[in-house]
């Protein structure tokens, strides 16, 4: 047999907090859950917020802390978007698990309260029908089962479910908190990071700690143990400012062909257009030579293009669309097209 190549976990997993108290920046939920650990009282919960802010981490940590390794398997059901969670599963697997009655009494120092926990991670990808089917189950077995819903977009959770839960919004991590987590990891891994690099890392990862950790690990592998701000930018996929400026300058020139050439270049270089739109927005907003009205016109188009990209539209065409309308706005050409 072929030799096995060893693997160990990436840093994001290695540094996933195992205890609720180690979850950074989400004070409110940590307070409530710490209370839960003492009193064993726990409402249904709904965690929502952007990626990498600690939602899954928190749900797993509290479950482990409540039940310990021995009971975990029998008391906690974790289902995520990769499991089938259609209406049938709700009516069978979830219901069966929810219905089981359990005893109480702490064991091996774990509180082990008399209920089970069902974690529905990435619940925003459940269909509305499946969510509706859950309502009854939630009510009928609320004595013996607690539900944890986790999602990025709370609007995708139907109101009847959301209103039965204590809701917690997970905030993007603030720069300070992010830095202290990162410094902690640097300490463990023997890395040095100067203060400029640290603030760069916080700003490029936009409050997503998972992303920050991934960048940090990649930079450490690529550039050794002393990491600069430039190293981090190069692994992050942020588009170099000169490239964004070049697109903007091309639009300012008023010449369609110049802009087209620049856009083609952006595509050939493989820069993600969604990121480009975002950085272009920054440039435009912060430019004092553009009137508010022009800015408004361009922003409107940026928004439309972003939406189209989400729908799966072509990157070249959308960026070109924005570029063309930017030219028109900057040259004060009429907003309406000839034929509309």
């Amino acid at each position: 047999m072929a030799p096995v190549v060893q693997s160990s976990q990436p840093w994001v997993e290695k540094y996933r907090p195992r205890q609720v108290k180690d979850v950074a920046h989400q004070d409110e939920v940590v307070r409530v859950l710490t209370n839960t650990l003492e009193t064993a009282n726990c409402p249904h919960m709904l965690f929502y917020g952007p990626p990498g802010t600690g939602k899954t981490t928190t749900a797993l940590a509290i479950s482990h802390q409540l039940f310990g390794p021995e009971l975990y398997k029998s008391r906690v059901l974790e289902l995520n978007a990769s499991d089938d969670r259609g209406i049938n599963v709700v009516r069978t697997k979830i219901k069966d698990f929810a219905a089981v009655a359990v005893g109480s009494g702490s064991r091996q120092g774990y509180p082990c309260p008399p209920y089970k926990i069902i974690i529905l991670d990435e619940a925003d990808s459940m269909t509305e029908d499946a969510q509706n089917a859950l309502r009854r189950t939630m009510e009928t077995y609320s004595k013996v089962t607690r539900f944890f819903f986790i999602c990025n977009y709370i609007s995708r959770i139907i109101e009847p479910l959301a209103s039965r839960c204590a809701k917690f919004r997970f905030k993007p991590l603030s720069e300070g908190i992010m830095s202290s987590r990162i410094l902690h990891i640097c300490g463990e891994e023997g890395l040095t990071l100067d203060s400029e690099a640290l603030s760069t890392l916080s700003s490029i990862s936009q409050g997503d700690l998972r992303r920050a950790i991934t960048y940090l690990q990649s930079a450490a592998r690529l550039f050794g143990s002393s990491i600069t701000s430039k190293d981090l930018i190069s692994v992050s996929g942020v588009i170099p400012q000169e490239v964004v400026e070049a697109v903007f300058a091309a639009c300012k020139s008023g010449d369609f062909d110049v802009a087209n050439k620049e856009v083609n270049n952006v595509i050939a270089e493989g820069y993600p257009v969604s990121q480009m739109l975002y950085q272009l927005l920054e440039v435009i907003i912060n430019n004092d030579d553009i009137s508010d009205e022009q800015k408004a016109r361009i922003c409107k188009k940026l928004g439309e293009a972003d939406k189209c990209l989400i729908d799966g539209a072509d990157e070249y065409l959308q960026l070109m669309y924005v570029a063309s309308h930017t030219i028109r706005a900057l040259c004060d050409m009429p907003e309406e097209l000839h034929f509309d």
Partner: protein
Amino acid sequence: MLWVDKYRPRTLDKIIAHEEIAQNLKKLVSEHDCPHLLFYGPTGSGKKTLVMALLKQMFGPGVEKVKLENKMWKIDAGTRTIELELTMLSSTHHVEMNPSDAGFQDRYIVQEIIKEMARNRPVDTKGKKGFKVLVLNEVDKLSREAQHSLRRTMEKYSASCRLILCCNSSSKVTEAVRSRCLNIRVNAPTEEQIIKVLEFIGKKENLQLPPGLTARIAAQSNRNLRRAILSFETCRVQQYPFTINQALPPLDWEQYVSEIASDIMKEQSPKRLFSVRGKIYELLVNCIPPEIILKKLLSELLKKLDSELKHEVCHWAAYYEHRMRLGQKAIFHIEAFVANQSLVQMEPVSSFDHLKDSLCASFSRISYV
């Protein structure tokens, strides 16, 4: 063997066009805790080559012993069993597949295969556990559901299964998936880099290269390395020894699109529209992706229009391509674009009013089909 395959660099050290990325990858996998990777960049830029070389770096020559199989998946979905068939390429260390080929059922494939890999984790004689790599191509074509189902799975099984995702446009990959990977941008090689590769091949094949030939091929390739090598080989087949003014192989369908563009420019009438429709249909039947046709058509039209109309056509191209994504039949939207373009062009000439009316009529018929 075609030159594109024959001269595909097998190791990271032999990579010519993306030396820096290759060297970085080498460092990245020096310890076996590298994160999941997402390669993105335009077609023909060399992502696949990098991925294969990377796998070899990680596991040694074993990854080259691949077998191609058509696997049947039986997936238990509550009340019914879904049967799916998908081609995959696998070695003892990795599996490569195109999950989006499963269409709207892609999510089942993604769920099932990763779990299966995690279950059958390779174990060596000392009982140490290893990991496998799953290469997923065209993840930008995966349905939203499938992308969602990757999220937690990527975290949960990260010790037993490392993912390498490839796609053209990373904007189409959800934020949550991107946040779980190290994103690696693979830019299209520059013309100079392409020339370098072509000259390298020329040397290996013992060819006499007339001055300027490789440069011309590179210029025509639109920074697509695969296309450049293919047309280099075609040149070799068509005529050797090369001559200074050797004609480059024409790009059939692109020629065809440029004819369509001329048609649109020449005459704006329902009859013309009808014949254009036939031609577009022909392209679609030959499996040229609709958005590629639309973009090529746009670029041909841009060559022929004045600057005011350029903005116009560009606006509508984006508009109809977006509609095409949401709709079902591509032909309607390309046709609507063409009809609309005809209208735009005759706008300034009011004496064509009657013609315009009849065009409008056929236009509205199209958009409500």
